[in-house]
């Protein structure tokens, strides 16, 4: 009788982050009178929770009272995650009759955000491992090969700085790249999100045989029997090599031999993107890759052969997101947010794919610029776009910047970090 739509969908499992997402209630059949309802949640302390607000920029509340029109039109409001879930669909939204208290509708939700890999529950960790291992299964349709091909030698000049001119879209491209992978994993298990490896802190639970592997003296990893990563293979070759320079029980990327800068120093690299991004690409990003003495993760052309790549880059992306929050950098019209406006003008030191309006390789299928920086092949096909969320099937640079949707709800992707909230009251765009 009553229909709840969240983010353009009704009835399907819902996945939210911190950003306010549009929602509505309506009567499926017109009634003589409007219906007063209370919207609230049922959740346990260890599970996720959501809040509701009438306006996108209002602080979410635990309950919301609305009037559902009698004529079948919708009443709009907003819903956002307020506490991260630990299990799939562990939050239940209840719509109850304000008068009788009767439950009119229940909708399950998961507040799905990217979490610190070192703090995952066993269940969260195992779901992630199962999903990524299945994605790189040796049978079936191994699409993981695309993620190797998107980050190989041919792609280097497109996605990294390789000359004296910075590749400003480095952070943007990698944000899209790991989101692509995350959405592929969510096709296998929608409760999975990419955890981040906070490389300037001790991560003693990450580099273990139960999780991302424990290194032998030589650097080859061993995994416990039930860890799906033990079957990881690239081009038919098993065995991941990844030897940490730091002590995995007590150390981190701040080990003096690695020379990585701290999180605070990273955020302090500059107040404009033009200052921040090229330096962050080098340190801490480059130093994080080199916090291992040997292994595919230490080389650009082979880095994606090791699944730690995604945890590393999730943290790089989180650092950018944190920088955006601290310096209020969501307004794509400001050069402080991103320096290259418009589209590639056809010439100049900054190449195609670096400008705000440019679509990004390889999702745009563009191989027409062979002879310039663009790779000659475009593996992987279009971006796995989702309805009412950014980015599109051929993502443009600007679509990855306002990832929480400060300027407009539809600018948001479905990414959030556990420690970076959505605070529209304090952000001007």
């Amino acid at each position, binding site marked *: 009788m009553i229909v709840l739509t969240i983010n353009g969908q009704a009835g399907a499992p819902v996945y939210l982050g911190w950003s306010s997402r549009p929602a509505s209630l309506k009567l499926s059949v017109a009634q003589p009178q409007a219906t007063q309802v209370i919207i609230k949640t049922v959740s346990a302390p260890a599970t996720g929770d959501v809040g509701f607000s009438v306006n996108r920029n209002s602080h979410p509340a635990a309950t919301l009272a609305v009037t559902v029109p009698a004529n079948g039109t919708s009443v709009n409001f907003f819903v956002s995650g307020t506490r991260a879930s630990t299990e799939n669909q562990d939050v239940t939204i209840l719509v109850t009759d304000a008068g009788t208290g009767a439950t009119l509708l229940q909708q399950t939700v998961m507040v799905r955000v990217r979490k610190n890999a070192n703090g995952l529950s066993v269940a969260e960790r195992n779901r992630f491992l199962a999903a990524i291992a299945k994605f790189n299964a040796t049978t079936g349709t191994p699409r993981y090969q695309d993620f190797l091909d998107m980050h190989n030698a041919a792609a280097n000049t497109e996605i990294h700085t390789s000359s004296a001119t910075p590749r400003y879209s480095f952070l943007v491209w990698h944000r899209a790249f790991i989101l692509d992978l995350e959405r592929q994993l969510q096709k296998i298990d929608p409760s999975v999100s990419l955890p981040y490896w906070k490389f300037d802190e001790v991560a003693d639970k990450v580099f273990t045989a139960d999780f991302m592997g424990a290194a032998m003296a030589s650097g080859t990893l061993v995994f416990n*029997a039930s860890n799906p990563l033990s079957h990881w293979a690239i081009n038919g070759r*098993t065995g991941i090599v990844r030897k940490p320079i730091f002590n995995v029980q007590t150390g981190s990327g701040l080990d003096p*031999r690695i020379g990585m*800068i701290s999180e605070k*120093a990273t955020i302090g690299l500059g107040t404009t993107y033009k200052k921040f991004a090229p330096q962050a690409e080098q340190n801490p990003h480059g130093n994080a890759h080199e916090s291992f003495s040997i292994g595919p993760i*230490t080389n650009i052309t082979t880095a994606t052969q090791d699944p730690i790549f995604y945890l590393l880059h999730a943290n790089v992306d989180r650092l950018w997101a944190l920088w955006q929050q601290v310096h209020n950098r969501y307004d794509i019209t400001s050069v402080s947010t991103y320096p290259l406006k418009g589209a590639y003008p056809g010439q100049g030191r900054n190449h195609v794919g670096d400008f705000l309006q440019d679509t990004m390789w390889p999702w745009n299928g563009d191989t027409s610029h062979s002879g310039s920086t663009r790779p000659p092949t475009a593996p992987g096909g279009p971006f796995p776009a989702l309805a009412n969320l950014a980015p599109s099937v051929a993502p443009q640079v600007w679509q990855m910047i306002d990832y929480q949707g400060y300027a407009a709800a539809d600018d948001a992707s479905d990414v959030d970090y556990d420690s970076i909230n959505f*605070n529209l009251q304090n952000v001007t765009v």
Partner: protein
Amino acid sequence: MNDNSNSPDQFGQQIDNTVNEYKASAEKLVQANTYQEKEDALYTMHYVHAEDRKAGVKTLQIATDKKEVINLRVKALQIIGNYLYNNPAAVKKIIGLLSATRENTKVKRAALDALLAIRFASPALLSQMPAFREGLRSIIHDRDPELAAKAIEQLAAYNDPGVLNLLHEGLKNPAVALAPEAKAIQLLGIQHTGGFSDTIRERLQKSRDTDVQIEAIHALSGDPAAQDDIQNILENKSKQKYVRLAGLSALNATAPHKFLESAKKIIGDPSDYNDVKVASLNAIAMQGRYNEISGDAEFLDQVKSLTGHDNAIVRKESSNFLAGHESYLENA
């Protein structure tokens, strides 16, 4: 929680403090003349900002000055990375420390660490790659084993033919080995077209060292000629757990039909070890191979019987396996 206890404003203040602390330390370093002044500044700084030319020049000067106190040189090398990223001339000087005669070992180690730390994302180092490789070659026989080992490791990762041949000779004749056997096999196995498969296969057959066996299995995981050896290892209950698990993964990846033969034996053998049973079930389930066992009633019964096993992990894995199989049948 979405209530970021460290609010952006607070965090922003901390960042400002960090930046200000850096500026103060850098200024002190630039002005430092005495040992104590330099030490205080270097140990406070943590890093040299990429665009801080004055501090960078001073740090580079300390790092490369043979007359300077060793621990200051080492510290300077530990913090100079950002300054090197876009500075090929500075990179060249640091590379020079590797091959410098009578250079202190600690300084060489710190120099190598500094170069490796920036390698991933430094176009400046890339422009000096010929010199860097020559620098590495100059220390593969260094009297410091750690330094030599690092250089060998890096050159092997670059497929340096000279180093690979030396490692190969060392496998055949341990008296001239440049690296421990397991490490040598790992490095020689990076490239399967290296031509070392015969030697590695021989070591797999003869060595009793667990690490050697694991490395050899992974190095041979794409080699059809090694499949029988690997299958024998997997089925050999006297082999160490991780060796068998490595064999399981390798066989599953490159000879899936042979792996399945072995997996069925393992599951059906009550005396075989839990870890190998669990990994076998895991491999079939994770690799989406239910279609290959779906008609095998005997195998499925054996898995069902494992759901009552003493070991919790075996129970869990077998239950998950059967649940996955049910799901496969529903969707098939």
